[in-house]
């Protein structure tokens, strides 16, 4: 017979308020195998831990049941405590009487009854718990960073500077992400490329960073410490070793200035051979296979013009897609965001050429943009005499995106400032806002400054943007003055909601990550584990987790890098022994477990024909246990016998 100790926690009043803790303690002391039963106000505190350790000695316990909060909170804590006290850490069972009892109920009498059942079943399982040993696996001290926007760049640099090898994967031809599309940043009005380009160069030249541009993640196997990743390198049709970035191919391209430039958000044109922007890293050209006449139609004049023009002979139409395999210990996901397409909100009139988004305006403001920094309306290429901003387009809107985009107010205010500079005093600037959320350091001060720049602020959401031909008419009810205004304006700028990447669902599935209700990647805990995911060894940074500004993104990226370091810096990782095992006498070698295992942790032994478990890869998901037809696959300390004993005891 086991010698079991039961320790019931009050959790302040969290448990004690709804469950009669003293009665529970008394009740537990009469259960089979229980030699001591005690309660304390905070079992997870130092005093509580000492209470458990002393009891282990005093009553010579070999098994411990703690009735407290969810094992997600403190299982680890109590394992350490009983291990210190001399009991195998896996001879611990938690009865969750907080989340699954006191928090869920209000009737004290009934809740106490339920808590008794929970404790009784925990004690029943404790009687059969086996002592387990942890094993160690070596760690690959290299990291994969997906997405080379400012988040991916910052995380890669932090990891590389800590001495770890980093593979940085970017799907576009150049790194830089959204930040490289911006002209200035709020609230300091730093030139975006001036602060970003040095970091991009550092990435390009860092000996610990291997850059994969125009590439995507194609597959992933393994688990924390030892992931095997497949990187798909799309063909650029330009030999990057030979390309000098001279631009002769782009100048010669027969489609020059005829293809919509996605970097300029459709405001400018490029050719099929192109470089997205002048500061691109790597400074190499790419041939867009969708538009290139030779690649799409098989014919480009007599011979492809770019190939003729390239003195280096760098153009290579025979390039094929490549798959590159790498082993990494940790992964940081920094895939960024998309902007809501305002076409879904018909009333904002985005179909009209002179209704644009803030990011499109950003390209017009940028000196490397399609108008070289001149503010010209798309319809007639004239300077607008009146510009109207509409904020919260699709944001904080129950029919579209319920969340706040967190950057719309400040980016629009920044643009107001820049337009005032570029267009002068006489231009009318209107801002239709819901609330101005200027929450960050220096933001409120910036807002005050912009309000002083003869900016007309209307608090409300326009009912409609009407295209009157050469001008747009906006009806807005201003809720600060309770008056209806009709604004006639030359250019309308919409601040659209920030939404998850269009392929977020497939991407999350590839990495086994979870999405939150809004479609962004879900963090393991919103407050205490904001950079972790539910997959060990995979971390998130930047807007893939939710909208945020550059400041927050960079902080989170450094945080994620630091979290990844906690794995990479270890030589070996302790592997939780709560994984699958095989009862060799029962195994028939049918191989079902090998097929169902999503982590490639199961394999048939060539000689014995018995299915084995690779302890380094198994995460204890239970798929093989559920599917094993002969009950040979078992989950350590979640065996059928243990579980049935729990059930038997409470029914």
């Amino acid at each position, binding site marked *: 017979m086991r010698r079991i100790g039961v320790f019931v926690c009050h959790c302040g009043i969290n448990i004690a308020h709804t469950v009669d803790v003293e009665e529970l303690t008394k009740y537990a002391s009469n259960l089979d195998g229980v030699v001591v039963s005690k309660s304390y106000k905070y079992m997870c505190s130092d005093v509580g831990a000492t209470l458990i350790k002393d009891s282990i000695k005093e009553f010579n316990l070999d098994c411990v049941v703690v009735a407290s909060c969810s094992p997600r909170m403190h299982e680890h804590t109590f394992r350490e405590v009983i291990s210190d006290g001399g009991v195998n850490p896996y001879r611990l069972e938690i009865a969750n009487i907080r989340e699954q009892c006191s928090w869920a109920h209000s009737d004290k009498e009934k809740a106490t009854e339920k808590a008794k059942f929970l404790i009784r079943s925990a004690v029943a399982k404790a009687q059969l718990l086996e002592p387990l040993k942890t094993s160690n696996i070596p760690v690959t001290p290299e990291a994969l960073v997906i997405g080379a926007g400012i988040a991916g760049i910052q995380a890669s640099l932090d990891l590389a500077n800590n001495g770890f090898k980093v593979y940085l994967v970017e799907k576009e031809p150049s790194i830089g992400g959204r930040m490289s599309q911006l002209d200035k940043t709020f609230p300091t009005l730093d030139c975006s490329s001036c602060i970003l380009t040095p970091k991009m160069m550092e990435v390009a030249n860092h000996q610990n960073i291997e850059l994969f541009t125009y590439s995507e993640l194609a597959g992933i196997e393994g688990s924390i410490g030892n992931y095997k990743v497949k990187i798909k390198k799309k063909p650029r049709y330009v030999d990057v070793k030979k390309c000098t970035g001279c631009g002769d191919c782009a100048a010669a391209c027969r489609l020059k200035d005829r293809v919509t430039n996605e970097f300029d958000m459709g405001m400018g044109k490029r050719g099929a051979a192109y470089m997205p922007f002048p500061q691109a890293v790597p400074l190499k050209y790419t041939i867009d296979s969708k538009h290139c006449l030779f690649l799409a139609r098989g014919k480009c004049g007599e011979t492809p013009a770019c190939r003729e023009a390239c003195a280096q002979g760098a153009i290579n139409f025979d390039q094929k897609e490549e798959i590159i395999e790498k082993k990494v210990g940790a992964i940081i996901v920094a895939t960024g965001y998309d902007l809501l397409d305002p076409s879904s*909100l018909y*009333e904002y009139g985005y179909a009209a050429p002179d209704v644009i988004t803030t990011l499109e305006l950003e390209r017009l403001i940028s000196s490397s943009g399609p108008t070289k920094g001149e503010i010209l309306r798309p319809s007639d290429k004239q300077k607008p005499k009146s510009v109207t901003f509409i904020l919260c387009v699709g944001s904080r809107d129950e029919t579209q995106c319920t969340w706040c985009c967190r950057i719309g107010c400040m980016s629009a205010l920044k643009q107001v400032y820049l337009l005032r500079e570029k267009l002068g005093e006489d231009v009318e600037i209107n801002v239709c806002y819901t609330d101005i959320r200027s929450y960050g350091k220096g933001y409120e001060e910036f807002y005050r400054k912009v309000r002083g720049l003869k900016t007309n602020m209307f608090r409300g959401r326009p009912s409609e943007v*009407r295209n*009157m031909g050469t001008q747009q008419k906006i009806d807005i009810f201003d809720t600060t003055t309770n008056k209806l205004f009709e604004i006639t304006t030359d250019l309308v700028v919409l601040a659209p909601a920030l939404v998850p990447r269009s392929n977020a669902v497939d991407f999350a599935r590839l990495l086994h990550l979870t999405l939150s209700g809004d479609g962004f990647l879900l963090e393991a805990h919103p407050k205490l584990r904001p950079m972790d995911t539910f997959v060990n060894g995979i971390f998130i940074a930047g807007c893939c987790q939710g909208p945020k500004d550059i400041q927050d993104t960079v902080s989170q990226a450094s945080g994620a890098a630091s979290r990844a370091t906690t794995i990479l810096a270890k030589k070996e990782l302790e592997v939780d022994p709560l994984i699958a095992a095989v009862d060799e006498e029962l195994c028939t070698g049918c191989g079902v477990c090998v097929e169902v295992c999503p982590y490639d942790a199961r394999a048939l032994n060539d000689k014995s024909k018995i299915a084995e478990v690779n302890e380094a890869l198994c995460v204890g998901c239970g798929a093989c246990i559920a599917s094993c037809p002969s009950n040979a696959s078992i989950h350590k300390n979640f065996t059928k016998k243990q579980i049935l004993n729990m059930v038997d005891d409470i029914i």
Partner: protein
Amino acid sequence: MPTEQYAYEISLREILPLLDVELVDIEGFSCCGEPMKSVNQLMTLYLSARNLAIGEKHKLDMFAPCAMCHLALSECKYVLDSNPEMKKRINEMLASEDLNYHGDKGIVHTVDLLHDHIDIEAIKQHVKKPLKGLKIATHYGCHLIRPSEIGRPVHSENPQKIEEILKALGAETAPYAQKLDCCGAPLLANLPESALTKTGQKLKAIQEQGFVALVDVCPWCHKMFDSKQVKAGETVAAKLDIPVLYLTQLIGLAFGLKREKLGLELNLSPVGKLEF
């Protein structure tokens, strides 16, 4: 449910049989209740529910060509289907006539009947005189598009179903900024001047943008745009002479039906000048 606007009803009864739709007239229908809504909401609900219950008794979907009736009935269905207590209360009131509202039958309007239930292709096949070269403006009417929560036959911000029907008839359409503007009718009783200003502004904009006719699908809107066009023109100091037709009248013309069969002599706007 019949309407007091004969031209609408006459044309409906002409074109629907051609499209294999049989209309069944049921005795005992009353007003939908909408005009009483601001005075007595319970009465509105009761009247709408009563009509729906009569339809259910005959196991038929309800066809309400008037957008306002359609709104009252839809709103009633929305309230009763989502509020069991109110449903019980109304059914207790209906019991005296041996009626009961279940909520298992649909409510259709002219636009979704033509666009969704009959199908554009079927309409296309009946076109004998395509409306070639006619640029026609559309007016849906507020009751047909909003509120979207209770379910309306067309999109509340960018309705396109009438446009698609017009294209099937061979006509041209174009978006115009004032498309969703109110006809002015709700203001007519208390602020007639404001009401006619709304009507006039919209018609003026349509005329200025080169449309040759306006189609509508609501008796109230039609009264404003058609019957009150001259007065509306005087209010906004513009000479208005734009033909205003019910969608069903225009479909009848495209189907090659005679003008007198479509009640066109009842229209007060200059429909005679519409040629194609």
